[in-house]
């Protein structure tokens, strides 16, 4: 076995995994504050990428204006979604909340494609496509940039959870009623978490849009993001990062060996298997809070 090659698979897998973590962080931010599994995160990611694309290509504005503008718009989109759709469903059975986010997913995807069309376009971030050599290993530059963004968002969110607002969000995620009774605006906190998740969706959309082009397939990242979030524990941001690296490596190395046996396309199978095994063996994930509940 060629060790360099294995190392290359591992490092590239870890970098791709960190890109999955971006999706997972968005999911975790919302789940942490309101216990809503946001199945529309994939569609939000796609919408974020398309908004950037609309500014930078259709209007011809430079990216350094387009991306911040998209961040602001998506922040309010996220808050709007929470205000209009999710707030009414607070306290309803989980099946309705899940269905609501799935409906949002279908709606956002349909609307985005109806407005901007489905043909794949690239963002042209200006990151070179030349491979980056570390020793003999070939790495992709955009993956390195994306991984750096993921780490940066992780650090930013860790710092954010130490600010006054962040502590409020932590209190909300601990106990709704107790937060209410000490005067924390739970609704405001939950809305803020949706806004933040939408900002993360813009970052995810930009990076993934550069990796694979901006089209409908961006919304398919949901399953990988969801798997990473569950593996790391649905309410742990550190978990999202660690699980992203783990899943990325498993996917990259595992699919290399499995593809030879089953004839290609085993990546999705590995992801689904990891999701099922995590839920069966350790539903609260690697770092998630373990709420003891009888089944």
């Amino acid at each position, binding site marked *: 076995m060629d060790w360099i090659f294995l190392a290359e698979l591992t490092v590239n897998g870890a970098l791709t995994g960190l890109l999955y973590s971006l999706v997972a962080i968005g999911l975790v931010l919302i789940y942490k504050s309101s216990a809503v*599994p946001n199945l529309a995160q994939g569609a939000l990611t796609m919408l974020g990428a398309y908004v950037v694309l609309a500014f930078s290509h259709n209007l011809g504005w430079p990216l350094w204006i387009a991306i911040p503008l998209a961040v602001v718009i998506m922040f309010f989109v996220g808050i709007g979604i929470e205000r*209009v*759709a999710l707030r*009414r*469903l607070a306290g*309803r*059975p*989980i*099946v*309705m909340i*899940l*269905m*609501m986010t*799935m*409906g*949002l*997913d*279908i*709606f*956002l*995807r*349909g*609307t985005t*494609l*109806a*407005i901007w*069309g*489905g043909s794949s376009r690239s963002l042209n971030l200006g990151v070179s496509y030349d491979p980056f050599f570390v020793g003999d290993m070939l790495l992709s530059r955009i993956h390195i940039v994306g991984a750096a963004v993921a780490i940066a968002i992780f650090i930013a969110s860790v710092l954010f959870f130490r600010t006054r607002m962040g502590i409020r969000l932590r209190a909300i995620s601990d106990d709704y009623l107790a937060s209410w009774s000490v005067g924390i605006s739970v609704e405001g906190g939950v809305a803020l978490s949706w806004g933040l998740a939408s900002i993360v969706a813009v970052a995810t959309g930009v990076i993934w849009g550069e990796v694979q082009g901006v089209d409908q397939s961006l919304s398919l990242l949901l*399953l990988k993001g*969801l*798997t990473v979030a*569950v593996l790391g524990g649905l309410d742990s941001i550190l978990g999202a990062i660690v699980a992203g690296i783990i899943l990325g490596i498993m996917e990259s190395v595992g699919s290399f060996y499995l593809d030879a046996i*089953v*004839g290609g*396309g085993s990546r*999705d*199978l590995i*992801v*689904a*298997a990891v*999701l*099922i095994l995590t*839920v*069966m063996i350790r*539903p609260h994930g690697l770092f998630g809070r373990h709420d003891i509940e*009888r*089944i």
Partner: protein
Amino acid sequence: MFYRLSGVHHNSYKSDTKMFPVRTDRNAIIFLLLLGIAAPFLIPSLYLNGYILPWLIWTAAVLGLNLVTGWAGQLHLGYGAIMAVGAYSAVHAARFGIPWEFALLIGGLASSLIGSLFAFTALRVKGLYLALTTLAMQFVMDWVLTHSPAISGGSHASLQAPTFALLGQDITSDAGLYYVAFGWCVLVTIFMLNLKRTGLGRALVAVREKDFAAAILGVNSFYYKVIAFAASSFIAGVTGALLVATFYFLAAPEQFAVNVSIQVLAMVIIGGLGSIIGSYMGAALILLMPGVVNQIFSGVAEFMGLEMGVETLAHIPNAAYGALIVIFLMVEPLGLGKLYANVRDYLMVWPFDQLKK
């Protein structure tokens, strides 16, 4: 006016366990049944086989999912995969030369077997995690279908279904296929109508409301969860097989992909959890909506003189479908069944509303 009742009152246990405590309900159902039997003579065959037949088959599927999600309260996002198991095993059995009656049964039992595996997940987890596991199982099933030519039928990934036949008679006429779908849908509906009168149905409801409270009352919650998954999967399997046999005529993996699972769940939710009449209405709404929305939009575009791209028109039904789900959950989370129940409750004692109080 319609019901001429002053409320529903019972004087004996026998009247309490009647299937239709209100006579008007029974008459309405008999009327609808007759309408269903007469449909081939009333409706042109294009509409009969293009709209009514798939509607009835999907309704049977929705009733099956309602059994596990609405009655037993177990989330299920892998329903399409279960239908696929039934469809593929039945079609393979029929191609092997087994008569369709037994092929359908084989499809149902195969689905039941696989579906019961899902129930073992329900032993470990519930709520969100159950939903995620069933979703992952759906993806595994999709993968298996698309990656095993032996099942999905070679390089074209489509499997021709042999001519449908019952009791040795080939069924090819439009009316014949319609009656098959109608018969199956009526069977499932009768099963579901009776479910709430039986111990099984009450046990399922107990498990849904609070499984450990049910356990304290002596209801073995795991046993009933397995029963719910197995029964619902059986319905799903036969429905999937009939869908291929009478409507699609060939089986392909994308007919049972993850979006189909989500669509059936949307039908259940829009119809109303645990509502039988709602299942009919939810299936009708979701199936008809894309066509209607497309008509409206192209009509409006033509009227206003707007230029709309092909791509825009192609994606608008999807957006409207999502919007429908979102709006329904915002306005009436309990679905069309609840809307119907509101109207019915109002008319039940109308115009003597004061009697209700």
